[in-house]
Structures are given as C-alpha cells and as structure tokens.
C-alpha cells in the first residue's frame, strides 16, 4: 500500500515538475510554475516520509526546521547577488563553484583574469584520470586496506580538479559556466536516483540537467564558441595592443550635452551591461526611462544574451526597477533597427558592443554576435573608468567619431542625467 503511494506520488511530482517548467514560457503564467514546483516537492517529501522504514521523525523535523531558518533569510539576498547565491548554494559539494563565486565576488586572491599555463589541459586531464583510476580500484576492491586512503585521495583530487577546471575560465564566460554547474546538480540527482532505485530523482534530475544543457548551449552560441572551447580553451589571453598603430582619443561629453541629445532623439536604445548591475543603477535607469517616454521618446532596452554574469541577468535587474518587460528586446530583434536609432546609450556594457568582434580575427571575441551600437547615429557610453572591460580587450566603439563618453559610476551619471532632464523640462 505505502509502496503504491510512493509510486503514485513520484508520477504526480514528475508531472507537476514538467508543468512547472512549461509555465515558465511566459511571464504571465510563470508564478503558477512556482506553485506547481512547490506542490511537487511537498508531494515527494510527504510520500517519502510516510514510508514504514522511516522511524526517526525527530531528526527529520530538526533538519527541515533548520533548513527553513537558514533558507528564508538566504532568499532575501539583494538581486545583484543572485548569481553568487546560485553558484554557491546549488553546488555545496562542488569546489569549482566556490572558485566561480570568488571570481564573481571579485575576491582578491582569485585572479579575475583567466589563469593559463603551458600544458594546462594535460595537467587537468591527468588529475581527472588519476581520480577515475583510483575510483575504479576502490569499487573493484572495496575491502583492501588502502581503500580508505584511496577514497580520501579521490575526494582531494576531485576538489583539485574543480579548482583547476574553473581558474582558466574568464569572467565573461561566467554565464556559461553557471549554466553548466546548474546541470551538474541535476545530473548528481540522477546518479543518486540510479543508486537508490528512485525514478523521481531520475526524472527531476534529468529535467534539471537538460535545462542547464540548453542554457549553456544558448550562451555558447551567443559567444560563437564551442562547449569544449569554454571549458578547456582559456578566453582573454589578450594579444597586447592589437590596435597600437592608431591611438585615437576618447571624446568626453558633459551631462548637459548628453541630456540634450537624449531628449531630442526619437528612438533611444539603452544597452545595459554588468556595469549597471555593479553600480545598482537600474532604478536611476528607470527614472531616465520615465523622463524620456514622458517626452514622447521611444526607449528600448537591447539585451545581449550574455550581458551580465548569468543568463537573463539584465532582464531581472530591469524588471526589479519596474521597467515593463515589453520594453526589453533581444539582440536579433534590435539590430536591424539600430541604423534608425538616434542615440545608443551604453550603460556599463563593453564586450557585447565591441565592433572588433566582427572583423578582428586575432581578437578573443572574434565572431561573437554583438549589438550594433556603432551603427546608431550617436553613441553615448557610460563607463566606470578608462580601463578595458572584463575580458580585457580594448573597445574601439569608444573612440569612434560619433561616440561620446561619460565617465563615472553608472548610478551617479544616470542620476545626473535624470536631474538635468527633470530640471530642464519647464523650458520646453
């Protein structure tokens, strides 16, 4: 009887998980998806708990209560920390994600730039091979005296492999890496399901694994790079000063001038990047959006698939600032419109608007699809400093004839623009 309950619950929970993911296809039904997911989880936990072999209920209650006590405050993290949280929590067992978290948090002792050295792939594969070989030995001869030591060595090597795997991966590849790590979590649930003979673990893990797989494929495609290239070929080993021949100068624009350009435009395309997230500028951007739409200016947000540090990062930040999702457009949709765009306002984005991706064969971002900001009539770019972007590449968009720079913290600069527009509105 209880066996039938467990089987029925597994079928029900699987169906609910599928619906949960299905409802994510539209923002209108997405919250229903969360309810389906929670229900599925409750069904699964309930059906397991009532099984006759469960005798120590106190321990379970204690662990679950503790999980709630920690989990509820964790869900209140600021949304810019969501990538870190996702990388950290889902993969408590995977050191690689710890390194990824470190990189995201810009911890000092973990190099931001990809760490590469000769023979790197050889070393990585060697470490993996030793771990696998020891694993086979332990499984074949579990009772041998040395098997306990071998097991500990495997754990150590697995940790080392995680670290070695992540350090060559540059910050610009983080969206892909996070997606891959996400699918690992699902695959480990599948493995657990095989061992415990539990079909629910297999189905839920497979759904999770395929989600991570699809996202990483999309992210790779958005950078014109292959899966293996992201994992094994380090990105951002910058060929120093490829454009050293013609050193062009930046042209700076004042806030007054920029505000004037914006209010006289008919179509403004805002291109946000990680810089907007770091500066927490999304609420100021919303005010700018309000000021401009109030004047009849059409404002669109062009979202590059790998802008930010995780898939969909920019969409969430802009949604947080109450910008309607109908104003957010995909790269492929906005590019044909760029020649008609009066002002392209780049806020803290860099590599995703670098025209070098189209023709500079020696550039690490060569071949990556970009948002055609350079084709707009005027380009305004807000940038924190004069340093190159995360991938460490010079961006010639900034020295183009029709580009004007606004240096400073994105939040402060956009705030000044808003003040300028609000103050000047009486004159028109």
């Amino acid at each position, binding site marked *: 009887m209880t066996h039938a309950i467990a089987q029925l619950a597994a079928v029900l*929970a*699987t169906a609910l998980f599928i619906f949960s*993911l*299905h409802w*994510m296809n*539209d*923002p209108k039904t*997405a*919250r229903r998806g*969360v309810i389906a*997911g929670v229900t599925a*989880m409750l069904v699964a*936990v309930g059906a397991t708990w009532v099984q006759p*072999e*469960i*005798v120590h209920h106190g321990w379970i209650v204690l*662990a679950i209560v*503790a*999980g*709630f006590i920690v*989990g*509820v405050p964790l*869900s209140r993290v600021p949304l810019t920390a*969501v990538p870190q*949280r*996702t990388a950290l*929590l*889902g993969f408590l067992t995977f050191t690689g994600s710890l390194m990824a978290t470190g990189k995201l948090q810009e911890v000092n002792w973990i190099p931001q730039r990809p760490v590469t050295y000769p023979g790197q792939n050889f070393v990585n594969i060697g470490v993996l091979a030793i771990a696998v070989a020891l694993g086979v030995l332990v499984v074949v001869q579990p009772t041998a005296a040395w098997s306990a030591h071998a097991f500990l060595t495997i754990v150590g090597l697995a940790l080392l492999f995680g670290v070695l795997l992540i350090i060559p991966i540059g910050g610009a590849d983080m969206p892909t890496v996070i997606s891959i790590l*996400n699918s690992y979590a*699902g695959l*480990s*649930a599948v493995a*657990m*399901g*095989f061992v415990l*003979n*539990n*079909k*629910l*673990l*297999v*189905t*839920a*893990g*497979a*759904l*999770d694994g*395929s*989600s*991570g797989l*699809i996202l990483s494929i999309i992210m790779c495609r958005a950078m014109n790079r292959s899966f293996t290239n992201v994992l094994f070929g380090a990105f951002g080993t910058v060929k120093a000063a490829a454009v050293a021949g013609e050193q062009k100068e930046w042209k700076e624009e004042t806030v007054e001038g920029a505000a004037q350009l914006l209010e006289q435009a008919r179509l403004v395309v805002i291109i946000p990047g990680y810089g907007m997230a770091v500066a927490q500028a999304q609420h100021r951007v919303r005010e700018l959006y309000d000021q401009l739409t109030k004047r009849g200016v059409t404002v669109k947000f062009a979202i590059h*698939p790998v802008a930010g540090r995780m898939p*969909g*990062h920019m*969409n*969430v930040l802009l*949604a*947080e600032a109450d910008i*309607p999702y109908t104003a957010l457009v*995909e790269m492929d949709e906005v590019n044909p419109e760029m020649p008609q765009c009066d002002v392209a306002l780049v806020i803290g984005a860099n590599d995703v608007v670098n025209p070098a991706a189209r023709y500079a064969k020696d550039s690490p971002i060569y071949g990556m699809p970009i948002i055609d900001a350079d084709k707009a009539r005027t380009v305004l770019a807000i940038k924190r400093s004069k340093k190159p972007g995360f991938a460490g590449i010079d961006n010639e968009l900034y020295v183009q004839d029709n580009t004007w720079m606004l240096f400073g913290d994105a939040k402060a600069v956009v705030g000044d623009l808003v003040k300028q527009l609000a103050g000047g509105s009486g004159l028109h």
Partner: protein
Amino acid sequence: MIDYWSMLFVFVLATFIGLGVIRRVSRLLYTPLMSLTNAISAIAVVGSIVVTGADYPTPIRVLGAVALFASTTNIVSGFLITDRMLKMFKKQ
C-alpha cells in the same frame, strides 16, 4: 535488484521532455528558470529523508541530517527567490 535498463529508459525520456519544455522558456525568464531548476534539483531531499529517518548507524544519520538541512535550505530559498523575481515582471 535494481532494473538499470528501465531507469536508463526513464532518464532518456525525461531528458527529451526537459529539452522540449526548456526550449520554449521565455528568454526574459532565464534567471528565474535557473533558480527554479536549482530548487528542483534539491529533489535529492527524498534520499536524505530516508538516510536520516531509517534505522542506520548514527554517524550515517548525522550525515543524512546535514544533507537534509542543505537541501531544505536550497528548496526554501530557491522557490522563494524565484517567486520574488517573477513578481517583478510586469507588463506596463
């Protein structure tokens, strides 16, 4: 005796369903999708409930309780944060 062949069968079919469903997810919602699947991957909670609650030696049950705590944390915060993000997506 575990029937690995039927498990493999289930795994392959579930993967194909997953690929079909995820492909249709709105690009706007990739971040909430990740935190939702992250919460779903904590389905491993059913394994830790068995390890914690059944009659195993105490050290194993302690490990089970730690795993149960970790996956509960992940489930609770994963679903809450997904809902919090989705609440923000408004049309106009």
